[in-house]
């Protein structure tokens, strides 16, 4: 198997790469992990990962600027329905649009909007932005889970660092949340696509288990 981590000039790519290699090795998953921005590599991959740090618009523009990458992504994820994982801004890019200081369209794969978090809106809790650190994962809707969470117990923490969050139009597409003054979307999913606001590559055992499940996932 081949897994591609898409390089669009942003992000802690090495971190993601190392974590995928470790998760594959520890779980005896035979997958070659590749960092690339070549459309041919996207076409040849079995699993597609879009990492991301930074601003929504910069990331979208970075993807758009790479010749053939958008088309290759659409073909692989929307037409061929290959398993796709977006991490942090890579997850947010699946939204219809992002509302930052400069608005930007997104991939529009999962309907919804990316907006600034407002942890002190209801009452001033003195909560800092970015939302940075380990926060508790919770199921969004009781009893509803996702195959990719098999074997991962609830009540564990994942590592977050972000100032914006993805509000899905359809609440069923928000799988996990976390609490930071307000409810924050922690994981989204639809068909062959999953996305995490948290960083599995930085979430120690929970994260490596999650990545292994993604590599074994057959949507």
């Amino acid at each position, binding site marked *: 198997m081949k897994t591609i981590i898409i390089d669009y000039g942003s992000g*802690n790519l090495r971190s993601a790469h190392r974590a995928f290699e470790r998760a594959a090795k520890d779980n005896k998953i035979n997958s070659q992990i590749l960092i690339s921005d070549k459309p041919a590599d996207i076409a040849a991959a079995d699993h597609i990962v879009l990492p991301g740090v930074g601003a929504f618009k910069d990331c979208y523009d970075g993807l758009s600027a790479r010749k053939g990458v958008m088309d290759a992504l659409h073909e692989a994820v929307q037409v061929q329905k290959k398993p796709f994982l977006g991490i942090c801004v890579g997850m947010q890019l699946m939204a219809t649009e992002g509302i930052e200081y400069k608005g930007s369209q997104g991939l529009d794969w999962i309907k919804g909007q990316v907006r600034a978090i407002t942890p002190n809106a209801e009452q001033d809790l003195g909560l800092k932005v970015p939302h940075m650190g380990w926060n508790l994962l919770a199921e969004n809707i009781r009893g509803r889970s996702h195959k990719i969470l098999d074997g991962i117990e609830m009540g564990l923490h994942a*590592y977050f660092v972000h100032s914006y969050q993805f509000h899905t139009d359809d609440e069923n597409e928000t799988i996990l949340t976390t609490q930071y003054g307000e409810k924050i979307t922690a994981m989204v999913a639809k068909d062959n696509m999953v996305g995490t606001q948290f960083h599995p590559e930085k979430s120690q055992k929970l994260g490596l288990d999650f990545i292994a499940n993604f590599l074994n996932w057959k949507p």
Partner: protein
Amino acid sequence: MSQFMQATQQNNNLKARIIPCLDVRDGRVVKGVNFVGLKDAGDPVECAKIYDAAGADELCFLDITASVEGRGTLLNMVSQTAEQCFMPLTVGGGVRAVEDVRALLLAGADKVGINTSAVKRPELVGECAEKFGNQCIVVAIDAKRVSKDGEVLRWEIFTHGGRTETGIDAVEFAIKVADLGAGEILLTSMDRDGTKSGFNLPLTRAIADAVSIPVIASGGVGNLDHLVEGITEGHASAVLAASIFHFGDYTVEQAKKYMASKGISMRLDGYEN
């Protein structure tokens, strides 16, 4: 615990962080008293592995002599250390330009600390934040008290590992770099570093309350109550310590459980109760 902290904890599941810090010189972890008189504390790669397994919330790698000796950070050593980290890794030391940040991220850092260069040229903070996102730019502030006894408390910035005085007010500088796009502040008290007498709590609180970004308290931890105070009295989001962990005075697990017993929300995943 204050009512404010109780209200915060009811609506917030974010945990306080414990960050062991590797002060690295010539490829070895060292820890000095007030940044001089260094004592060897081992191999950074081994330390990273141990702290990852111990459930540390993050790891900090500071190349403490980079600015002094005018050379770049040891990228190879960073890369080997990063191999062992499945938690966030902050690397600092000798970062002067946007390219230095990129190189560290490619070596495996998740966040990059900027210290001396941010004081010399604060715009660098904005340039790096714009390129890589606020969340990966940590401004490291080394501050020392300059007010005399009886005067209103005042602290100033020192650079080059605490060797050079700048005359810049520490609280004003913190506000400025937060505005420029820093995602976090790593605040070290030069008066306390290596003394094991506890964080400089008035300094930590003055800066934590002045900015809307997270502050990591650093410098002076000698026991577990000091870690507790950093959060409850200093209002820090995270506490950093070196010697008490490097020399085995306490384990990360002991520290987390002790803090939790004092009412601070901690991540205790993976530990048996």
